[in-house]
């Protein structure tokens, strides 16, 4: 039985400390935005979670390529871990976006390109989990999952372009002005620092979670093997 790696312990603590500092910065260091007020503070974690979500989906695609090249199931494990974490973080980013959008755009939901693309991306990776559920043979599951993550990685940017095109050609009639322009603001240095710090913090948290999830996957494999051995 392997014990928890020392470095992972350190990483856990670093994540926690960074998270506390980032939260403090959001509430006490960053100035209150003049027009939108307090609600704008959701922006820092909103950007950071969305960034982690994106990072995870790209990581999943790269792990998919890694699996197809090496046939090593470790890559599949990593790919699944990245997708699971990203799904959660992306969902958090979308919810935070809605919380922010309500006061500044006047609605929880708008068919804005980034928002729509984020939701389509969530659906792609929800389909990924369903695909995995339908497959029992680990080799085949890994192969199909790898192919699907790669297709997803290619499709998401094209989706973004198409939705953006959809919006720019199609004038926004409902609502009094361009949705993207509303709620825009210029950042002060303190705001920018807070945002960058949040992004770094969440990236560290992402790495820690990813490591935990990969470890969990490996342990689950081991349990499965032991069970098979017992059954024989």
């Amino acid at each position, binding site marked *: 039985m392997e014990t928890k790696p020392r470095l992972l312990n350190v990483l856990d603590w670093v994540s926690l400390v960074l998270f506390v500092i980032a939260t403090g910065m959001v509430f006490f260091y960053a100035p209150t935005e003049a027009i939108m007020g307090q609600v704008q503070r959701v922006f820092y974690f909103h950007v950071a979670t969305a960034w982690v979500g994106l990072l995870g989906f790209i990581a999943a695609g790269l792990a998919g390529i890694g699996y*197809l090249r090496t046939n090593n199931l470790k890559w599949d494990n990593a790919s699944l871990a990245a997708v699971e974490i990203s799904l959660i973080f992306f969902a958090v980013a979308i919810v935070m976006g809605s919380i922010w959008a309500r006061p500044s755009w006047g609605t929880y939901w708008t068919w804005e390109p980034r928002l729509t693309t984020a939701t*389509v991306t969530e*659906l*792609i990776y929800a*389909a990924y989990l*369903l*695909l995995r*559920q*339908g*497959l*029992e043979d680990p080799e*085949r599951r890994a*192969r*199909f999952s*790898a*192919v*699907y993550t*790669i*297709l*997803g990685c*290619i*499709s998401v940017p*094209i*989706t973004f*372009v*198409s*939705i953006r*095109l*959809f919006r720019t*050609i199609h004038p926004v009639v409902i609502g009094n002005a361009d949705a993207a322009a509303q709620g825009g603001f210029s950042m002060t240095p303190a705001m920018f620092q807070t945002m960058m710090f949040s992004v770094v913090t969440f990236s560290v948290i992402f790495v820690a979670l990813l490591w935990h999830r990969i470890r969990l996957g490996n342990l689950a494999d081991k349990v499965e093997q032991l069970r098979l051995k017992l059954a024989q």
Partner: protein
Amino acid sequence: MKPESVVSRTQETSESGPLAGARAFVRATFAVVWKDLAAEMRSRELISAMLVFALLVLFIFNFALELDPKTRSTVTAGVLWVTFTFAGTLGLNRSMAMEKDRGCLDGLLLTPVDRSAIYFGKMIGNLIFMFLVEAIVFPAYTVLYSANLFNLGLVFVVFLGSIGYIAMGTLLSAMAVQTRTRDILLPILLFPLTIPILIAAVKASAGFLAADPLPEILSWINLMVVYDVVFIAAAFMVFDYVVEE
């Protein structure tokens, strides 16, 4: 064997080497297409199911959307593409399930041809069925709703859109049939990945129907071409992994 004949033979193959490979690839591809068409000619189960389904969808839309002349002009493109998409999914599922159930896929994989030739064969076969359904839905829509759809631009858009949709669909249906939940899985896998081409196809179709100036429509056509090229190339690269045993 005489030595000179060996020499001449190796020279011949080295001369036409790459081209001969390409020719064999095309021949293998069209053998698969021909097989699908011949099977369909005998049973007619796929095309009839797709067609009846497409017409049913058109009827349901009529009642669901109250397609009076005024609404019709704005929703025609959307109705058409939803119809094609649903009917296409039905066909894609059936076409791969047929291969899987009767063990044909294993037979195909045993043949000494490039695996991607099988992909392109299946894809072209599916595309032909899709075009056939579209060719019948067009006049049907025209008659039912007295809206003239015969527009060269629209036909071109349907052509480009169907290619992208079927290219992705053929690849994913090859994956979906090998899962436990295959009948429900294909649309779930396929729809989120084909959103860009569906958006582009609907917008371009609507543009041609409303006789918009060409430059406005052109960006959608470019997008469809990009989608088609990118995903045909991607499918070409990954299909081996999907059918590998």
